[in-house]
């Protein structure tokens, strides 16, 4: 059932069209241009998300020009070196209709789930990355990877359902151990011996599946759903074991990184957040390159970032720092946003500089980035900024500044799903319901 025999896959077992192929990448399978598999099908496109807190300051962020070659305002300065690799989309709105404006919550929940939450702590559905991962993440070691530079596992924007967050990996050492620790199978290893231990472990899962079925007999409907989730997770574990028992195809770009000497540091100072972001990003990039996952979530966080010597953390500053009428924004708040953008630049650069095939890893990725507000000071849900990075295997253009015309942020999630091969007619609810892709970025 889970025997993804290479021959069968190449015969189109999974159907044709834009559905991505569930195979690890093999350079020998690339065509002469390095941008397609040997049989003409496109290389697998990966999907990523990135998050930063507390939005932007219009006067300091939004470029005056639209389209290509736009001007860089101070908050985006750090992104200049990677300008060609991403799109910046400004003037989008997260509509809440009759739902309350739940500060630092509604904005991102709408953007990632399509629906406005009615109460704090209530995620009204699965987030877009989970939807995509359910489609394309079934054949890799990990269905998805979720990490955060914030230092807090609760800093996640990925939910399977309202009560099941995908907790963020926050420790560099633990992340490394998970990705490249003793269970890592180097695809480029010269020899491969399927481990008998894994074989017996896999066969033992059947007993656990039986336990789930047994428990389901005596619980109510809601709990049945939770047990179904457990069951599905076990199935995926079985698949992971299958993966470990299959000789992986070599991946030229995959190199196991050296172990970290010490763990990521604790602390809220922006420099410490940046150091965590860097370490975790580096691991994430290699994990994607080694095809351990095709869906990856990263959060810079930054809601409670601190600046040495400045007594307020970032969020407090958004509410308490005076507005500089000459600049038309709050200077220190803008300082925090610039630090966030530096980390976004690092993220984009890391994928852009990683060679894959004839191009870069970023060429075969589609990453969307969003925040929780437009102007954080007043918890604005309009004037929100979004990013995309990567060319999705050629489906997407980059280097553009696009005006959203006050339309819904959900258009980005919807566009992402379409790009990733999900044939959905629309996404979102009420005023966030959209069937309009952001056509300007499509190639």
């Amino acid at each position, binding site marked *: 059932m889970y025997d993804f025999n290479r021959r069968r896959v190449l015969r189109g077992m999974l159907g044709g069209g834009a559905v991505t192929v569930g195979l690890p990448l093999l350079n020998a399978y690339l065509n002469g241009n390095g941008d397609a598999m040997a049989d003409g099908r496109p290389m697998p496109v990966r999907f990523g998300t990135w998050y930063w807190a507390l939005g932007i300051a219009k006067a300091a962020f939004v470029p005056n020009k639209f389209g290509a070659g736009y001007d860089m305002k101070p908050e985006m300065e750090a992104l200049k070196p990677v300008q060609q690799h991403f799109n910046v989309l400004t003037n989008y709105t997260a509509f809440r209709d009759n739902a309350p404006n739940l500060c630092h919550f509604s904005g991102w929940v709408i953007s990632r789930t399509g629906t406005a939450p009615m109460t704090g702590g209530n995620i009204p559905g699965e987030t877009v990355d989970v939807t995509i991962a359910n489609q394309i993440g079934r054949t890799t070691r990990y269905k998805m990877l979720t990490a955060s530079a914030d230092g807090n596992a609760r*800093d996640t924007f990925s939910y399977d359902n309202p009560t099941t*967050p995908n*907790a963020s990996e926050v420790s560099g050492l633990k992340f490394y151990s998970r990705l490249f620790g003793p269970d890592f199978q180097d695809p480029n290893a010269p020899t491969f011996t399927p481990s008998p231990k894994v074989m*017996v472990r896999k066969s033992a899962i059947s007993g656990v599946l039986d336990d789930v079925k047994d428990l389901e007999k005596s619980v109510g409907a809601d709990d049945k759903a939770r047990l179904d989730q457990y069951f599905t997770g076990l199935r995926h*574990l079985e698949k992971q074991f299958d993966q470990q028992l299959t000789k992986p195809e070599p991946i030229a770009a995959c190199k196991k990184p050296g172990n970290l000497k010490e763990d990521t540091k604790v602390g809220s100072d922006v420099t410490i957040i940046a150091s965590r972001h860097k370490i975790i990003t580096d691991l994430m990039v290699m994990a994607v390159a080694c095809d351990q996952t095709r869906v990856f979530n990263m959060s810079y966080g930054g809601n409670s970032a601190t600046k040495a010597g400045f*007594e307020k953390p970032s969020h407090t500053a958004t509410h308490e720092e005076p507005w500089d009428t000459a600049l038309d924004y709050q200077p220190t708040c803008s300082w925090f946003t610039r630090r966030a953008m530096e980390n976004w630049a690092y993220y984009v650069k890391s994928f852009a500089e990683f060679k894959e095939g004839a191009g870069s890893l970023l060429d075969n990725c589609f990453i969307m980035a969003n925040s929780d507000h437009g102007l954080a000071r007043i918890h604005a849900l309009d004037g929100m900024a979004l990013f995309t990075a990567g060319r999705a295997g050629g489906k997407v253009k980059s280097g553009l500044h696009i005006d959203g015309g006050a339309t819904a942020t959900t258009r980005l999630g919807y566009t992402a799903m379409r790009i990733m091969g999900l044939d959905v007619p629309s996404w979102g609810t009420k005023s966030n319901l959209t069937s309009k892709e952001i056509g300007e970025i499509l190639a």
Partner: protein
Amino acid sequence: MSSKVRFSSLLRGSAIGLVAAFALASCSGPAGSDGAKTAAAKQVAAVAEPASSGAEPRLRLITRDQYLNTLAYVFGADVRPDVEFAPVERVDGLLRLGTSRAGVNDTQLELYQKTAQFVAAQVIEPTRRNFVITCKPANEKAADAACASQVLNRVGRLMFRRPLEKDKLAELVSHANSSADKLGDFYAGLAVAIEEVLMSPKAMLIAETAEPDPKNPGHMRLDGYSLASRLSYFLWDAAPDEALLKAAETGEIQTEKGRAKIVDMMIASPRLKDGLRAFFDDMYDFEKMTTLAKDALVYPAFTGLTAEDAREQTLRTVVDHLITKKGDYRDLYTTRTTFLSPPLAALYQLPTTKGWIEYQFPDSSPRAGVLTHISFLASHSHPGRSSPTLRGKALRELLLCQPVPRPPANVDFSALENPKSEHKTQRDRVNFHLENPVCAGCHRITDPIGLAMENFDGSGRYRTSERGATIDASGNLDGKQYTNVVGLAAALHDHPSLTSCLVKRVYAYGTGSQTTNDDAEMLKFLNARFEQAGYRVPDLLRTVALSKSFSEFKEAAPAAGEAKTASAVPATH
């Protein structure tokens, strides 16, 4: 749960909370003088447990500490994997209640699998295998059904919290055997079966099942094993031990006398400490302490070690006061006795010696009770500054069960900022809240309380002035005036919601259900008994554990078209 919810001016709750808070503020609590009379009257009136709908069976996700406590009992105290489970929703002030809703996704299952692997490897490790594997296989390199059966029967029973069914045991043994054959090693084969047990939902999810109550037709009750589990997770934060499982097996646990004997044994056990620590760790929202960091320039003395030890300080104080000294719960907020470690002493700037010591602040000291512990003061502050609003809110929500409403989204701070004036103290800064009618409604509930704690900076260190201005720590708590935090502590001590909030939390925690309006009479009863017992927490735990509503419930009439279910999610309120 996103921490964003927490940080955005950190207020949540519904409008109901606001009304309730106002009601409380306008009604002054009973004075101490006729307290004795009312107490006696209460005694007579509420000695019998009222009829109640009881607390239904739940399906709860195991927490990390419960998992570790159980591993320690089953496999030995040194089997302690370094693992973090995914965060759980906080429902009505308790993470414990969120476990009844939490799902398990791929990431978590992966984690459970890896942890199970780690534990199993430790169990069969040559230097310690004799601890759990008390039999010897005929041939170490081959399967041995008898020995495998013996081990797996015990491990399965303790991890699943009930005896293994025959065919389940047979299946486990057959996996152990076939694995041993494939791997050429009895112990390695056994390890695979142990992993299977540890990964099972029967281990990682705590399922409560019900049976008809023979003593009360038309009613249901938890079956013996579910009752044993509910008791042991309540009092010991761990799976039931052999004694409890035996009491369930023989039916002793379902008799009044038998159950009382069990509960008394559990309360007298040193394992009660684990249970009490888990409860207060939850109620005090100490999960915050794991990510608590301060601005290193402003508070150089506050390090990661400080945060860890601050949590430990409060938990030790709680255990010492409530269990060891059998103290009055209210005195937890006024006692000058606590515990000190070298990192904490460096923050207090007090002399100490190695390790933890029991410490008593002098009567002249401003340190009185939990409000003046580093844990409370530091976790409800900003990284570089104290916060009267956060501290006041914490007192309301964590200690008095009074939710404070969220701030309005369109709150305009432009009037607050006057770049020309330099507010010296927090009192000056937050005064604006109280002058502006839009803000005052809620801030009146929080700020006057938090301002009493301003003699402690954002790291919890004592100070008498801020930026050269002497700190004025006076205020009032629902009508009771005070001039400093010691006065606030005394006012808190006498506040009726202090004890009733604990009762509500303990009851919800123990039964695993949010309290609803239906529980009003039950809570009244528990409050009366708590008062009778001199506010001694072990007695409260006992009362809850022995109450009918802890183990019995009236099945809800099925909604039209819906099948009767044993563990429905409660109506949220």
